[in-house]
Each structure stands twice: as C-alpha cells, then as structure tokens.
C-alpha cells in the first residue's frame, strides 16, 4: 500500500516537472505559461461540471488502462490497446446492427459481449504468436493497431456506412437512442457502474488470486516461475485476453455512450493515453483510477487551451507526450541505477 502511494507521489512529481517543461516551451514560443496553467486547472478541475468531463474521458480510459496494466504486469508489452479498442467497438456496432429492433435489455448485453470478445480476439493472435513462436508482441500489437484502424475505415465507409452522412468523416449509422447507455456528454450511472465493477474485479484478480501473484512474479522473472512449475503460457494467454477484452469493453462504451456511432479514426489517442495511465500508475489498479481521472481532466482541458491561452487544442498532445517522456525516462533511469548498483555489489 505505502509502496503504491510512494510511486503515485513520484509520478505526480514527474507530471509537474513535465508541465513546467511544457510551460517553458510554450512561453519560448510566445504563449503565456500562466494562462496555460490556468486553462489546465480551470478546464480540468475547477470549472463547473469539470468532474463530469473528467469522468466522461477518464472512465473508458481507466478500463483500457487496467487491461494494459494486467498484460504489462505479466511481462507482455501489449501496446495494441488502440486496435483492440477499435475492434471491440466494431464488433459491438455489427451486433447492434443485426439485432436492431430487439429490446434494449437484449441488445445492450449482446453488444458488450461482442465488444469484449472482439477486443479479446484482437489481442489473442499476437498473444498466440508470442507464446507459440516468440514473435515480439510489441511489433505485432502495434501492427494490429494499424490493421484495426484500416478495418474501421472500411466498416464505416462500407458495410455500416451512414448514407445520409454529410460530414467529411465516414461514419456508421447512429445507434437507436434506446440502445445508448449515455447521452453525448458521456457520463451515466451505467458507465460508472461498469467502471467500478471492472476496477473491483480486476483489483481482486490481481491482489487476491494465485493468478495475480504468479503473473506479477512471471512478469519480473519468467525463469524463476518456470522452475516453480508454472505453465507460463496459461498466465500469458490469460493476460492477453483480459487486456484485449477490457480495451474492447471501453470501445463498446464509447460506441454506445458518448459517440453513438462509429466514425473512422475516432479517439485515435485512446490506447496510448491508456498505456500512459497504466505506466504513471506503476501498473496498479487503484493508481490507474486516479491517473485516469487526471488524464480525463487533461483531455477536457484540451477544449479550454485555445479559449483561455490561445494555444491550439493539440497542445494537450504535447503535454501528454512530455509526461510520457518523463514517465518512461523514470523507469529507464531507475533500471539503470539498479543495474549499476548490482554490478558494484557483484
């Protein structure tokens, strides 16, 4: 417990340092650092309804991030959350299309099931390739992201294309309002309940089952776990499947909640922000919840950056990237120091 608190505190320090760095960069570029900070604070946390906005972005991110944390903990760098998120949403959209007309209490659960299975399958093939033939999951899941992105383009401009759509972006036919689980603001008791259930059940899985402990050990030293007689492939495959299913679940929530339809290239940074959240949280489930709310807040602050500070809204990507840089540098740095120490002792 204290361990995770320490790591959250440490992550916060790095986030603040990253923000200061961004402030310096923006002020060199001629923007006001002070306004940047106030836009972020106001947009993310202080203004009316800020919590709602943070939750709207944060809850799906949290669910995906938990999945990322579970696969990273087991030692598998599944960076394909974005692809699994898309495939989940696509599968749910198809099921919604096919069951259209049926009562909501049938359609909605079926869509969720389809979304989770879709996401899980999209994580399963890189998992199998990794476990059966040693193909690097970083490469395969990354490729999977591009494939899923193209699949989304195909689906929204082909089988599910909205013929009446007038925008430049291809999108699917909007979901019947009866099947939506929230309005376009995106926060509803259903979504909160799903996030809480996911958080609790995954916390239990990680902290209160053999699987959780063995995957933590296997992630840190697979050789040792093999000598204990564990079947590594079981732990590995389960981790891939769970992380894919959760990303697919988040995709389904975005589809049936705030978005109401598939649009080609929608939420393109969802997966990577989720990875960032999991890393900031040091792969802890509770930490991911806190970090997801923080990044949800940042996402909603993106709207305020142009209004208050005159910055382009993509400035938030620069801020996210700076945080990512510091967080990954942190673990590299710590690794380096640990290795140096063990060499000195050896």
């Amino acid at each position, binding site marked *: 417990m204290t361990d995770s608190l320490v790591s959250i505190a440490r992550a916060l320090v790095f986030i603040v340092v990253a923000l200061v760095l961004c402030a310096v960069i923006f002020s060199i570029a001629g923007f006001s650092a002070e306004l940047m900070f106030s836009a972020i604070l106001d947009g993310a946390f202080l203004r009316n309804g800020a919590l709602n906005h943070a939750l709207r972005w944060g809850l799906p991110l949290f669910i995906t991030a938990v999945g990322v944390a579970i696969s990273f903990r087991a030692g598998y760098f599944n960076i394909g959350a974005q692809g699994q998120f898309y495939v989940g949403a696509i599968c749910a959209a198809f099921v919604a299309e096919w069951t259209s007309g049926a009562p909501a209490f049938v359609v909605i659960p079926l869509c969720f099931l389809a979304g989770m299975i879709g996401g899980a399958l999209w994580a399963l093939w890189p998992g199998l390739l990794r476990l059966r033939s040693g193909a690097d999951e970083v490469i395969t899941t990354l490729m999977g992201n591009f494939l899923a992105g193209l699949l989304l383009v195909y689906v929204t401009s082909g089988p599910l294309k909205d013929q009446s759509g007038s925008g430049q972006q291809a999108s699917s036919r909007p979901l019947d309002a009866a099947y939506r689980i929230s309005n376009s603001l995106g926060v509803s008791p259903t979504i909160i309940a799903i996030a809480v259930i996911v958080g609790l059940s995954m916390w239990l899985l990680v902290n*209160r*089952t*053999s*699987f959780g402990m*063995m995957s933590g*050990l296997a992630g840190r030293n697979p050789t*040792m776990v093999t*000598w204990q*007689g564990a079947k590594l492939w079981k732990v590995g495959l389960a981790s891939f499947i769970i992380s894919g299913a959760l990303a697919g679940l988040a995709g389904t929530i975005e589809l049936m909640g705030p978005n109401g339809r598939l649009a080609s290239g929608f939420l393109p940074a969802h997966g990577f922000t989720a990875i960032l959240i999991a890393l900031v949280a040091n792969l802890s489930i509770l930490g991911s919840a806190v970090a997801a709310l923080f990044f949800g807040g940042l996402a909603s602050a993106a709207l305020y950056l142009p209004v208050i500070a005159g910055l382009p809204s993509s400035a938030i990507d620069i801020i996210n990237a700076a945080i990512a840089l510091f967080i990954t540098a942190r673990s590299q740095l710590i690794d380096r120091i640990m290795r140096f120490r063990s060499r000195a002792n050896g």
Partner: protein
Amino acid sequence: MSETTPPVLDCHDVTVRFGDVVALSDVSISFASGAIHAVVGQNGAGKTTFARVIAGLIDPDEGSVRISGRDMPKGSVNDARRAGVELVHQNFALPPSFTVAEAMQFGGAGGKLYTRSQLERRWQAHLDALNINVKAGQRIRDLPVESQQSVEIARALVTDAKLLILDEPTAVLSPEGTEKLFERIRHLKSAGVTIILILHKIREVLAIADTVSVLRGGKLVEGPVACSGIDADKLSELIIGPSARPLDEDDRAALTGSASLLHTHVGASAQDGAAPPILDMKSVSSAPDGDGPPLADVSLAIRPGEIVGVAGVEGNGQRTLVRALSALAEVQSGTIALDGKQVTTMPLQGRRIAGLRVIPFERNVEGLSLTSSLWENWSARKLLQGSLLSWIRPSALRSECKSALDTWDVRYATVAQRAGSLSGGNAQKVILSREMDEDARLIIAAQPTRGLDIGATAFVWDALDKARRRKCGILLISSDLDEIMDICDRVVVMLSGRIAGTFEPPYDIARIGAAMTGVAHDR
C-alpha cells in the same frame, strides 16, 4: 630476493568500499618477485576485489599500489598492463564466438588489420611456445574449460607479463586439470614470472605456493608467510576465524579444502536399504538441450535418507540432468519414477505436488525473482500447488512466510523487501525455506553452496543433513569435490551426459578425478 630488487607488488593501506560494504580494509602487503604467492580466504573475504585492484580494474578508495617500485595511477587498467600486470578472471572473459587467434589478438593488443591465416600463424607459434595444445583456428566455445583457461593464460602472457594474477583458477578444473595447471605455473615461475594465485583450498595452496596470505572479512589477517612454515590446521583456523558455530572436524576440512586425498569420512547415513527408492531413473536419454550435452542412458536410484552426489567437470550434463528431473528438458527414452510413481511425462507442477523440490543452479535467476518481495518469492511453490484461480490471503501468506524465514534464520527487515536486497547466503536460505518443507520427498540441490561464505555453507550442509534424517532423498550436484565427499553417501561422476562411475565411501579423490576426465571407467 636481493636487496636491490623492489618487491613486484607493494600495496599500502588499500581500502575499497561498495556502498556500505567494506570489501577491503587497510590492506598493506608486498610480494617478492619470482615466486608463487597464494591469497586465500572464504567467499566474500575480498580476494577478487584484491586481484582487481592490482589489475587496475577497481579504483581503491584509499591507499596506493606500487608495481616494481613504481606508483600506479589509481584504477588504470592500461597502466597496470604496461607495468606487466595481467589478470585471468574467475569467469572467463573470452568471447565464445571468437577463434582462439582472434581472442588472443583482440584481447591483448588489438587494433590493426590482419588476415585470418596471418593471425592464426602468429598465435599458433605463441601457443606452441607455451606448450598449450590448442589450434588457433578453433572457436572458444568449442574448447573444453581446461583449454579455455589455458588460452586465457596464453592471452595474459601475450605482452611481457611480469605479474600474473589467477583468480580461482582451479574452480572449474578436475583434479587432474589442476595438476596440469600447476605444472604450467611452475614453468612460468622458472621463466621469471611472479604469480599471484587466488585460491580457496588449502590443499592446493600447500601444493604449489611459496608464500600464503590470508584475507578475512576484507582484512589481511596473515602473510605473506612462507608455506614451509605453516600447516593446514593453522591455515584453516586463520581462514575460518573465530567461528560462530562449532564445526565438526570433517566439515572444517571440507570447507577449507584441507582434507587428505583419501577421504574416509562417511556421512551420518540415515538410509534404509530395504525401502523402495524415492527416485528411480532408468536408462534416461534426453534431447539436446542447449544447456550442455544430452543425457545418455542415465540410470540412478536414490533411496530414502540418502544423499547422492553428482561430481563432474562443469558442463558434462549436470544441468540437463536437473532439467530432465524437473520436466524442463525433454526425455526421449527411459523412465523416471518418483516415490514409486511414474512421472516420466508429468509436468513439473505435478512432480512438485508429488514431492519434488529443486534448488536450482542460478540462485538469482532460476531461484528467486530479485525484484519481487520475499513473501511473493516464498509463496510461489505453495500457490502453484493449487489452481491459478484460487483465492489467496496475502496477509496470511506474509505471516506464514515470516515464520518460515525466522525458522530458517534468514536476516531480513520485512517480508515485503525485495529478494535482491539480501546477501547470497540469506537469499539461498529463502530458497531452502521454500524448497525443504515437510512435504518434500526428493530434493535436488544444484550447487547449493556456490558463492556462499563458510557460515552459510555449513548451514546448507546442516539443512541437507536434517532432510536426510527425515528420510528425504537428496541429489546434490556440486563442482566442489570436498563438499561432495564430505556429505554424500554415494557419488556418481558425470562425463559427457553419461554416468562415468559410481563411488562409495571411503572415497579416493584420485579415482573420482580420473572418472571426471574419462581416463578410467569405474564399474
């Protein structure tokens, strides 16, 4: 030793610290040239650190090093080399994929362009001159350890070495290989090279060295004194020091390698001749495993209350044997039975449930997850006996772990600390506490005392002995013949994946040594 010749090495108040650990403390010593000087001490006494300071690999925190009367700049390998100091490492540092000639060229001088045949001609001459029977075109990885070591020595002698330091050169050698090495060393001495030998066996010290110095806990406690003026008992006392626990005479002799060549000690055997064997391997052959030669027709039975030792030069299939017994290497033919039950095709998890326990070779890689907590490491075995989805109570596991670690006398702060923060001996005790529980039937202990100091080594032996009294079967793999002869009820020797001989007490080190090198086949 004339008045005018300065000592070849003169250390003055050398102190080295690694963080809080003082590896060497105020060591002042000087060595006369043209002699063989032994430096002995238990593991962790600072011997390797001492060797590295002289070779310029470690920059001492305090003190100075003079070589042939000249001050050495601190921590400069090049300056030490120029002064004629060469170090042969304990773990060979030759690149396995290089040919001998390449390793000689680039390990020593390095630099200019040569063709392969030029290189090979050049270094073949050097090897021949040193009477080393190796082809310059062979790859390092294809050479047996003895030859690799010879090449290391040849490499060290490329430049005009005046002071050659050999760090634990006998650790990887058979008794016969050791004798050959000693001949080579005597030869070098007669050619005017001063040699510092880091050793830990008294028998070897007395056989070769002119003087001996003893390090204990980073301090120089004796020396250099002439070997003619000291005996094995006195030396072993100096090495062990005031011991915290009384050691029996044979253990003491085994620990310091001062036992006589004909070993008459018989372990306090607890075996029960009539009982069915706990392990029964029948003609087991394995697939090539990458970790050494495959097993070829290995038959081995261990009865309850029996410790069977596996001796052999490292890399002769000992690893494959342990991996095959742990279901990690594929068995192609033959059968393995555990406690009367066929387990030939059973995975490790099942074998563990049936009572198999493994103390693996690599404590820090195969035995523990160094970045995980103690209680997670300790609980791993227990957890794997159930299903992956079973519930656990971390608080209960933590308190069970705490009481187990306390029983095993592990020194730790909290069970939540990382396993990597423990010393070698304590880390090994964590593994013992996990692998030597009451349900254990067959315990495989692979190099369980490697790198441990004398106290921890004696502790491991005690633990093995207690398990023997509980009627466990124990398979001890060790490259330390003194250890094997001291505690085993029976010894088998492995050579190229085969059992090359079986020996019962009283053990004759010469015959075991012959079997290790394949000179003679016993039974």
